[in-house]
C-alpha cells in the first residue's frame, strides 16, 4: 500500500524535500513506518528520537494502523506562539 509522508522544520531541511509517497507492506503500523524511515534515511535518526507521528492530521502512537492513502506527518517538537 502507499501512504503520503510529509515532513517539517529540521527534518525537512535534512531530507531536502517535504512530501513523498512511500510504499509499505500492509498491514503496517506507525512503528513499522518509523523502522522503514530510519533504514532508508539514517541521517534523521537523532531528529526522529524527538519527533511524534501524525496520521491524517491527528497525533498517533506506535500502534496506530496505517491505511492506504493516509497522510503521515513527522512532527518535530513544536515551537509556536
Amino acid at each position, binding site marked *: 500500500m502507499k501512504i503520503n509522508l*510529509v515532513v*517539517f*522544520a*529540521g527534518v525537512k*531541511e535534512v531530507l531536502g524535500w517535504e512530501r513523498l509517497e512511500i510504499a509499505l507492506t500492509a498491514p503496517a503500523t506507525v512503528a513499522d513506518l518509523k523502522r522503514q524511515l530510519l533504514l532508508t534515511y539514517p541521517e534523521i535518526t537523532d531528529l526522529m528520537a*524527538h*519527533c*511524534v507521528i*501524525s496520521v491524517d*492530521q*491527528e*497525533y498517533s502512537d506506535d500502534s496506530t494502523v496505517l491505511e492506504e492513502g493516509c497522510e503521515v*506527518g513527522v*512532527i*518535530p*517538537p*513544536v*515551537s*509556536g*506562539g
Partner: protein
Amino acid sequence: MIKLTEQPIQAQEALDAIADCNAGANLLFVGTTRQWTGEQETRELKYECYQEMALKQMQQLHDQAMEKWPLLGVCMIHRLGSVPVGETSIAVAVSSAHRQPAFQAGPWLIDRLKQVVPVWKQEINQQGDSSWVHPVNPGATS
C-alpha cells in the same frame, strides 16, 4: 475564530472576534518577537506550520476551552513567515460574563497551543544565522 495568516496581526481583530454584548470580561494575550534572550540577540523569527493539522488542533483547543469554561468567545490568530522584533506572532483572546473564566482560559489556551499545535519557529540572529527552536519535550506527549 481560528486563523493562520502571513499578514501582520492587528490585536483589535482578536478583540472584535470575541465581542459579545453579554461579556463583562475581555482578555487579550499578544505574543511578540523578543530582541534579547539572555545574551542572544534576535533579528526576526520565521514561522512555518502543518496548516491543515494546525487549524484542526487550534479548533480542538477552541472547542475544549468552550466546554471547560463558560466562555462567550475564543479567538486564536497565529502569524506565519517572518515576524521581526517587536511584531506580533500570536494573539489569543477570550471573553466571558465575569472575569474568572477568561483569566483561567487565556493562559490554558496559549500554553496548550505551544504544546500541541504543529507550528515551528526559526530564530534568525543579527548575523543572519538561523536555528530551529525546538523545546525539549515533543508536543503530543504533554
